[in-house]
């Protein structure tokens, strides 16, 4: 199992971190997907991970989530961690509340589940079946399911990719609000450059299995897209992602 390499961070050694990865390599057949990757994420830090499709973003997330253990190198992640997948992955035969508290031990899980649902704006929908929820609502249940575990690290794999633009804007605000309140470390995988700049403290670009760019965003919040620094960072990231023509057009 992954526990062999996925030891838990206590924060006692070196500086405190929510993720510490050293020389991580993952090979599928002849194809090297992650090639000696190094990554450290501090507690409470919001890190966005960008990369072209096939660059290994999801592979990295699967390793950190404990779904993949055929790796070499050192991988450490906070013990209390939660994942929000690209699709909500709710059990269709379990009502919203049951999905939120899935696998949680303890006596007052119902109360905590209700509180988490209320926090994502779904109070009163505890008994809804997942099929009756809209895409945004289902993804909010998935957020509540991650939150209720009071994680030190939340990993999100293109969580809003399937949502419409208006819902996505609302989800951005909700995610920012939740992060401000709970202060978990966040690893946010996305292919949307604007989304990354809008939300993250730091943006990483994964190219050919290594981090080719690691920049702090350093913009005040809220971040207007029209801000020149926003546009400059967008151009830089787009260039790094190999869409230079568009990057020039965007400036």
């Amino acid at each position, binding site marked *: 199992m992954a526990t062999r390499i996925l030891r838990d961070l206590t924060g006692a050694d070196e500086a405190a971190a929510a993720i510490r990865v050293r020389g991580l390599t993952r090979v599928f057949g002849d194809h090297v997907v992650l090639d000696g990757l190094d990554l450290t994420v501090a507690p409470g830090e919001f890190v966005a991970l960008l990369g072209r499709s096939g660059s290994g973003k999801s592979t990295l997330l699967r390793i950190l*989530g*404990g*779904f993949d253990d055929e790796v070499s190198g050192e991988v450490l992640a906070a013990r209390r961690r*939660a*994942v929000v*997948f690209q*699709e909500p*992955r709710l*059990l*269709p*035969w*379990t009502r919203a509340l049951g999905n939120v508290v*899935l*696998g*949680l*031990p303890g006596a007052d899980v119902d109360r905590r589940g209700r509180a988490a649902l209320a926090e994502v704006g779904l109070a009163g929908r505890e*008994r*809804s*079946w*997942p*099929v*009756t929820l809209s895409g945004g609502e289902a993804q909010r249940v998935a957020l509540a*399911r991650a939150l209720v*575990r009071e994680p030190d690290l939340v990993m999100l794999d293109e969580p809003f990719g399937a949502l419409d633009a208006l819902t996505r804007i609302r989800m951005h605000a909700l995610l920012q609000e939740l992060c401000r309140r709970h202060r978990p470390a966040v690893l946010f995988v996305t292919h949307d450059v604007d989304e990354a700049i809008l939300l993250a403290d730091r943006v990483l670009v994964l190219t050919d299995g290594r981090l080719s760019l690691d920049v702090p965003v350093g913009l005040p919040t809220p971040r207007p897209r029209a801000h020149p620094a926003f546009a400059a960072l967008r151009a830089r990231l787009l260039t790094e992602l190999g869409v230079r023509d568009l990057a020039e*057009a965007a400036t």
Partner: protein
Amino acid sequence: MTEVIGEAAPAPGLVNVPVTSGVPVASGVPVASGEPAGAGPDGPVAPLLEDPTGKRNRARRARAVPSWARRLAGPALLLLGWFAVTGFDLVSDRAFASPGAVLDAARELWGSGELADNLGVSLYRVGWGCALGVAIGLALAVIAGFFRFGEDVVDSAMNFLRTIPVIALLPLIIVWIGIGEEAKIFLITAGVVFPIYMNTFAGIRSVDIKLVEAGRAFGLGRAGLVRRVIIPGALPGFLVGLRWSLGVAWLLLVFAEQVNTDSGIGYLLNSAQAWNRTDIMVLCLVIYGLLGLLCDGFVRLLERSLLSWRRGFSGT
């Protein structure tokens, strides 16, 4: 980005979409100045318009006949046809009894207690056969579904056995366990096992790996995964198998009860042939039909309560 469309370019028509390049042109010089082919001298040709709804675009009126009444119309038509065929003497009473005659036969047999006795015996056989068959089929499906070793051993064996028609087992069953109740129950059990096994196994294997992964990520152990993810996910497949196997059970009952029996609906049917009583024969057929309907209704009820999450039914 500054996209410049030449002033002289004609308005876009449906026939021809003018291609204007997206290259920024500082001076605003017309880019597409040529006349697009296909357009008339006065611009694009006016297209022919039609109503895509085909003039059937009236708002839906409320149905005058409720759905249950429409559902009953089919059986009612059959009954009417039965009355017509027998009432107008299109066929002789010898060949096909009229509904009235069948009702009389039912009264007669119910009065003598024969009908209740035989029905009871048949239900007993089907009940035990189904119970055993469902239990065995489920157990095998769980073994094959959960353990790779189980799949290798059980699934290949089941797929081989499945190809043997169950009725062909009858002579062998008689040699093994005689012609008593056990033989009849065994035959039904053997028939029920396969649909239950095949559908439940497929149901277990069709459970979305992503849900299993999510369950694991959120702290479900092996037992929790089975209880919260795999069993509910396999339930629709199991219910399909159940509906199918109940049909098989009644079919096999007919066969089982026509071999050396002295009780059951099948026996009643066979002996009616000896007495040339078509009314009793038709009565037995009607009973088979009604029992089949009853079983179907039972599974439907199970589906409605167990799979309510599918329809998004949020009753409390």
